């Protein structure tokens, strides 16, 4: 059995709501079949809140092993470095997190807030918040860059706003059963952050042939005009669908890059920034000169069924 403690800091509860939507495996399966024992989950625990205090005290006194420590939400340091915008038992939650982290077999940042700061750290960052081991795109989170958990791992960043339900439960299942977890340069498990949102998007063919929507509600690609960051964002949204059903981009909603450390961007989120006619940010790894060349060729080669946008998505 692996013990799991889940605490919320500056959060909207969205990751908890998301994990309740997991179906492969479900949260219940983690308990019934993957050997996870939940010491505490704020929305689900029936133990008393006093028992949470006893649990935390026992962990800190090395009387109770903490195998998996999940933190959901931004780490709030304000006002003036006191952390008292988000206290627990009269003390800043960031202090509790720091102390519990020292005891954790592995520390998991649940969501982009805990990983990088997230929506609460958007300018002017009123609560002076940051992530567990990152502050947006750089180090300088609550814990030092060199920090490692008891099992030698940096903070495992399950980025997403919220995190994809099955990304959460699969990662927790891997941690519980000892399947090795390889991390990318942002400490996100590669297994779930090794594909772009663009890959698997049903609007892909429109993108291939440079057929782009100019207003919302249509069938075509939203990358060129409508702010979609699918080609630059690493996440499983189109390879393991949300709620088993769909993805934002398939439904005509731009990808806002919510698994990225700079989410939410500090600019018009529904518009694509361009230099002349070319987007400032191109699909991952694409050279500007090549892009211009192949896009005009592609548009010329586009079949009628794509050009007239009659294909369903």
């Amino acid at each position, binding site marked *: 059995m692996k013990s799991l403690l889940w605490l919320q800091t500056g959060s909207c509860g*969205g990751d908890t709501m998301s994990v309740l939507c997991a179906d492969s495996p479900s949260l219940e399966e983690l308990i019934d079949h993957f050997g996870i024992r939940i010491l505490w989950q704020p929305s689900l625990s029936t133990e008393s809140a006093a028992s949470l205090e006893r649990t935390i005290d026992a962990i800190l006194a090395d009387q109770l092993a903490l195998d998996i420590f999940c933190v959901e939400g931004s780490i709030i340091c304000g006002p003036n470095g006191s952390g008292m915008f988000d206290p627990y038992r009269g003390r800043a939650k960031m202090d509790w997190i720091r102390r519990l982290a020292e005891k954790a077999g592995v520390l998991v940042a649940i969501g982009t807030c805990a990983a990088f700061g997230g929506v609460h750290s958007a300018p002017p960052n009123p609560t002076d918040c940051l992530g567990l081991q990152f502050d947006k795109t750089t180090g300088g989170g609550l814990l030092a860059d060199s920090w490692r958990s008891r099992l030698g791992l940096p903070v495992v960043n399950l980025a997403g706003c919220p995190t994809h339900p099955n990304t959460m439960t699969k990662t927790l299942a891997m941690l519980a059963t000892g399947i090795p977890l390889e991390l990318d340069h942002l400490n996100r498990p590669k297994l779930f952050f090794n594909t772009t949102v663009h890959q698997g998007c049903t609007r892909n063919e429109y993108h291939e042939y440079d057929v782009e929507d100019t207003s919302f509600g249509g069938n075509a690609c939203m990358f060129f005009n409508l702010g979609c960051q699918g080609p630059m964002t690493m996440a499983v949204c189109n390879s393991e669908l949300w709620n088993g059903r769909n993805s934002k981009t398939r439904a005509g909603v731009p990808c806002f890059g919510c698994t990225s450390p700079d989410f939410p961007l500090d600019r018009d989120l529904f518009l694509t920034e361009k230099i002349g006619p070319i987007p400032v940010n191109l699909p991952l790894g694409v050279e500007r000169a090549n892009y211009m060349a192949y896009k005009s060729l592609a548009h010329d080669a586009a079949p009628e069924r794509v050009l007239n946008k009659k294909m369903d998505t």
Partner: protein
Amino acid sequence: MSSRVVRIELNRVEGDLDFELTLQDRVVVDARCIGSLYRGFEQIMIGRKPMDALVITPRICGICGTAQLNAAVLALEQLANLQVPATALHIRNLCLMAETVQSDLRQSFLFFTADFCHSKYAGRPWYETAVSAFLPFKGWAHKGALEYSRQMVEIVALFGGQWPHSSYMLPGGVTSPASPRHVLNSLSILNKAIQWFETRIIATELDQWLAIQTNSEFFNWLDGKPGHSDSAIGLFTRIGRDIGLQRLGFGTPHMLSYGAYDHPEQGDKPSALRDRRYRAGFLNGDSGQILPFDQTKVSEHVRFSWFQPYSGGRHPFQGQTIPDYQPHTDRYTWCKAPRYQDNVVQTGPLADALIDGDPLITSFYQSEKGSAWLRQFARLRRTAKLLADMREILGELGKRSGSPHIIPPHSSEFPDGEGYGLVTAARGGLGHWLQVTDGLISRYQVVTPTAWNASPKDSEGRHGHWESSLLGLEIDNPDDPVEVGHIIRSHDPCLVCTVHMLDSDTRISIRP
């Protein structure tokens, strides 16, 4: 008389909330409701492009992001005077309902009824039955609620791409059409949920259950068949009333509802002028009169909140949200104190049902007033209604394949000016008030349902609704005040953070 200040913590609520209760002997004589987490959303909005509200504000709440999105989009549509096609309003209504059903199932069977398995009740004749139904991860009602709440939001995902947190309602409509594939998938999800609800929750068909008009008819129904009293709603009723929840947690008698679900054929009218499926209004608890709702009568006080002070109350269009943390003063919370025409009000399913004129809820209210039990009962009554409404909407959407789902605005730029969006989230009235200056958001004020219910005292010293719902409560065992849990959870607290109550020296807690 011994007097002491006690602090209790509650889980299975959404958010960080402390209560400080003053007890004389075992009776609550003063209550302070403390929202202990500050996140600063209103400041984040300032200086951003108006459309960004559709991405940022759903992130206020992981449970009611669809309602937040709807409030934001209505405010933008009002600002730019935009029309919305009927299909879009049907889809919006369907998704809002699915989100509310999700929340009500989770609130009822993951958060509220778990307390019936508390060891305090181990000797009661119904205890084993309660455990078999409501014990987390083991009881049949808990397991069913996990399963069907998860499936219900698949309907939002079909039209919006994902749940939680999507931005598929855009000014002028929604991003996806009423594709028959989505409609049939939704119907398939809904039919299974209704079948479960009819079999396990109400042991009757929806229409028959909804036809019950008075409390005596309801009790006749309850005793009519063993299946009725053993259904989840039967158990909830028998147990809740055995432990006296119909005599607890009244709070303020004044109720507010913004109404819910815009009439789909009125998308050419400004949202504030559209009829809604459920009526808006203000129920004056002193006179019993239901009066038309007028958003200009909303104000927010900060006298006891950790915000830069101003005198009296301010309408959200004049509102300001500047944190000013002063721990050693008589100010005690990050919640503002919203008031309607200077009245403390409550909002939520009970208020909605009474203002809309639901006969069964009104009948109970007239004989027993608005208790913790009735508040929770109104929530389950609503679930039945919404499931029936969703079936009707999907029938309508099935005929609307190919009809427009969005009227894209002529310009991506929004004019300067102001707009508001008022919706009914699972927990009650939710409002966004925004102003745009030089093309950017210059003010954004959000008044959440929980702000109404969890409000602290105002400039006149009037307690907020939750605070007043605890005043006079006699606590059996101050070291394990399970009554407080019943009352507070019946309000479906959502501060997106834990409910604590404070004890100066002894910490007391609520056990299952």
